[in-house]
Structures are given as C-alpha cells and as structure tokens.
C-alpha cells in the first residue's frame, strides 16, 4: 500500500517535472518546435502581451485624434453641414438603444444565474457536486466577460462610425 502511494507520488513529481521542462524548452529554445503551431516561443511573452495592448490602444487613440480633428474641421467649414449634426445625433441615439439592449440582456442573464443557485444541486458524487459549484463561477465569469466585450465593441463601433462619417463628409469616399 505504502509503496503504491510512493510510486504514485513519484510519478506525479516526475510528470510535473517533465511538464516544466517542456515549458522551459518552449520559452527558451525557440527552435525546438515545441511551441504550438503559429506561436513564436519567447521568454518575453508578458512584454509581447503589453505590446499588443499598446498597439491596439495606440490605434484607438490615433483614431480619436483623427476624429477630433475631423470634427473640428467640419465645425469650422464656411458652410456647416447640418446633415452631419443630425447623423451624429442619430448615432448617439443608436448607442443608447444598444446600451439599453445590452443592459436588459445582462440583467435577464444575471437573474437566471442567481435563480439557478437558489436551488440545491442534485449529485451522486463529490466530483459532480464540486463541478456544479464551480459552474456558477464559470457562468458568472462568462457573463461579465460578455458584458465587458460588448461594451468595448460598442465603443469601437461608435468611434469607427463617427470617423467614417466625418471622413466621408469632409473628403468624399475612397477606397
């Protein structure tokens, strides 16, 4: 019995060691081919994540500056374009509508989730019981994640839409 446990413990330690070795090889060797297809193994991965955020946020900032410049140019045109103002107000209205839809959906989903945890789960095994307990956190995480990405999508959409509209008004269209 004791020997079986020791063997199990030995095996576990060995497997963890092998997994760690594989990870170290993947982030240091680079040429070993152990990195997943399409990914470049690098010890600088956290920095690369930061770089990706930096790049996307930089693009958003640049777009915002461009948009502000466009709006300023449109505002100081000798003959102001009333249709632009109307369309920007329509965009604002569309954003409010979508925010309201997102909020309604979020509250409905959250209500469903909370209703679910008021009932005691039925399970025959400890593993299933634990699984059911963790399900709640998984679903909550998914809900919050969806809500956040929906908000960011709306922000991107608004920025894109305004930029596109102002550009078209100022300079005509062009691929």
């Amino acid at each position, binding site marked *: 019995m004791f020997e079986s446990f020791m063997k199990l413990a030995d095996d576990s330690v060995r497997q963890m060691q092998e997994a760690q070795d594989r990870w170290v090889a993947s982030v240091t060797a680079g040429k070993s081919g152990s990195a997943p297809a399409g990914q470049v193994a690098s010890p600088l991965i956290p920095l690369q994540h930061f770089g990706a955020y930096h790049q996307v946020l930089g693009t958003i900032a640049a777009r915002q500056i461009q948009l502000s410049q466009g709006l300023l140019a449109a505002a100081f045109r000798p003959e102001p374009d009333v249709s632009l103002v109307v369309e920007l107000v329509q965009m604002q209205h569309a954003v409010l509508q979508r925010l309201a839809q997102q909020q309604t959906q979020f509250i409905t989903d959250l209500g469903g989730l909370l209703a679910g945890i008021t009932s005691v789960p039925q399970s025959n095994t400890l593993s299933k019981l634990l699984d059911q307990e963790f399900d709640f956190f998984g679903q909550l995480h998914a809900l919050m994640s969806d809500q956040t990405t929906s908000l960011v999508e709306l922000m991107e959409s608004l920025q*894109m839409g305004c930029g596109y509209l102002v550009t078209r008004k100022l300079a005509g269209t062009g691929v």
Partner: protein
Amino acid sequence: MLADQGYKAPPLPRFRADLSQSSVSGLSSGAFMTVQLHLAYSGSFVGAGIIAGGPFRCAESFRAAAAIAEDAWELNALYVCMNPLIPQVGPDPVHLAAVARETARQGLIDPVENLVDDRVYVFTGSEDSVVNSSVVETTKRFYELLGVAPDAIRFENTIPAGHSIITDNPEDNPLPANRPPYLNNGGFMQSQHILEHIYGPLKPPSRRLSGRIIRFDQTEFFDGEPRACMSDFAYAYVPKAVEEGGPCRVHIALHGCKQGYNYVNFVNGRPDLDNAVPYGNRYFTTTGYNEMADANDLVILYPQAQGADNSKTQNPDGCWDWWGYTAEDPAHPDYYSRNAIQIRAIHRMLKRLGGE
C-alpha cells in the same frame, strides 16, 4: 477497425455540366463570398442568391480605421459591413459600384457588363442582428447600379427571420433566432426559392433522392496552402441521371461562418475539441438544395471553409474570406479577385464539373 487518419478523399469527378448555366448562393460570409465570386467570374454565372450579405469590397470602405491595413479591414467588416450603428455609416453602394467597375477595368475580375442579364435573389430577415438589414439593402442597390434589371432582382426584407437560411425542418431553430447553426424553420425551403428565381420555373423537389452526396478531396484546388483556410474535404450532390452521364447545370452553395463540416468552437481561446459541434453536416444535407437538384439535374457543389486563429490568420469561425485574411500582402488584399486563393479554388472545382 482503426480509423484511417491519413484518409484522402477521391478527386472530384468530371461531369457533363453546362458551365454557361452556373449559379451561386450563400449565407452570411458565404453571401459576401457569393457576391465576390459572382463578380470575379461573372462570365461563368447566370445568377446569384445572397442571404444576409453585403456588397463587393465593402470591408475596404474606410482605410483610415487603423494604421495597420489588416486591422482596418477587420474593423470595417465588423462595424461598416455587418452591424453599422446607423445606415449612413454602412457600405456606400454608389462608391462600391464604382470600385467594382475599376476592379474590372484593371482586369482583376470579369467585365461587370456580364451582370446585366443575370438574376439575383437578395434576402435579409427583419430580425437579423448579425448582418443588419440596411447593409443587405445596399447589396440590392449595388447590383442595380451595375445594371442588373430591377425585375431580375428579387429582394425580400419582410420575413421576421434571424440570421439564417430558412428551412422547413422542425429540428431547426425558431425563425427569429440569431444563433448557430443559423438554420431556422420558417416553413419553406429558401434554397428552392433561390434556385427558382435564378433558373425560372423548375420541377418540384424530389420526395426521395435518386442520387448521392459525394465527398471529394478539396486540397488539390488550393494546392494545400494553409492560408486558404479551406478544409480537406468538400461535398457535392450528384443526381443519378448526372452520375450516369446525363447533362447538368451547377449551383454552388456556400455555407456561412460556423457551418463548415469541421468547425470547432473556441472556448476561452482554445479549440473545444472534446465537444465537436453536432451540426457540421447539416448545410449540405438538410437545406433543401439537394431535393431540388435531384428533380432538375443540378449538381450542387458545397465547398468547405475551416477556421484558424493564430498569429497568421484570424478566422476562428471558419468564415469565407471577404475582408482579406488570406491575403499574402494585407496592405493590398486580393480576396475579391479571380486570383484570390478561395475564389480560384472554387472556380477550379466548377471547371472540373464541366469536364475541364
């Protein structure tokens, strides 16, 4: 018996297809690709069916959306071509018709004059929350501007359908749903409306199929290049009379995103290989094309796209390329031209069916 992991499907057979009578239809990304294929090879097609798709090259509407071209095309795809906040920030059909003419002038697609006598079916469900109805209306306008006669365009926008191809299968989603597998039960087979609009009155669909669905090796048509984002296999429905040597016409049916046979859902950024989606075969088996094809000597070709989500290709949903993800040079994407890897591959399949 162990499964043969190295299985290679047989090649697509040659038939006696009249290649001057071909047509194409598709849903969503398949609809965007339908427009591109139709324009790229307008000399080969007599009509097209577009379900929830936008006009040609609309993903290039606003280059200034991002400093990196690839990012700009994707932002355009999402916020101009699929779900603009208001119609005024959607695709501009006048501009895109001019772009199509210029693209033809450069020799990248067939002359747009070929479209004049074509028949076009355009559909948007009034409950569609994935591709906004205002976008699909610009597709209709785009075709009109290119000279397609108004009475040759059937435009439907009053049915309260979500983002889907409509069927009469009780197993499919309720009509207003906007969720996979994007097959909604509306009490009729939309595919059959498309085929009848393109080809005129046809014999009623067969109650019992005489022919069979064939699986064939798709890789030979894109030379196995991973950037094509096309699956190893594709399918075709072949009526018995056609398989026995009879003449036929070809209709190409393009699935939408998340509808390829080997689509894998991504959960928390990882492919969920343990839970393969259960509907991968339904687009080429239950959408009603085959029954109509059987009665009318049509071969239905079902090319298959597949997903990829890595540093080179961002297409996790297995969509057809209508924003340039297959481009070798993203700054100058060629996803819309006769040289585009997916368009060229599908057209090669078409030529094979014609015996070439």
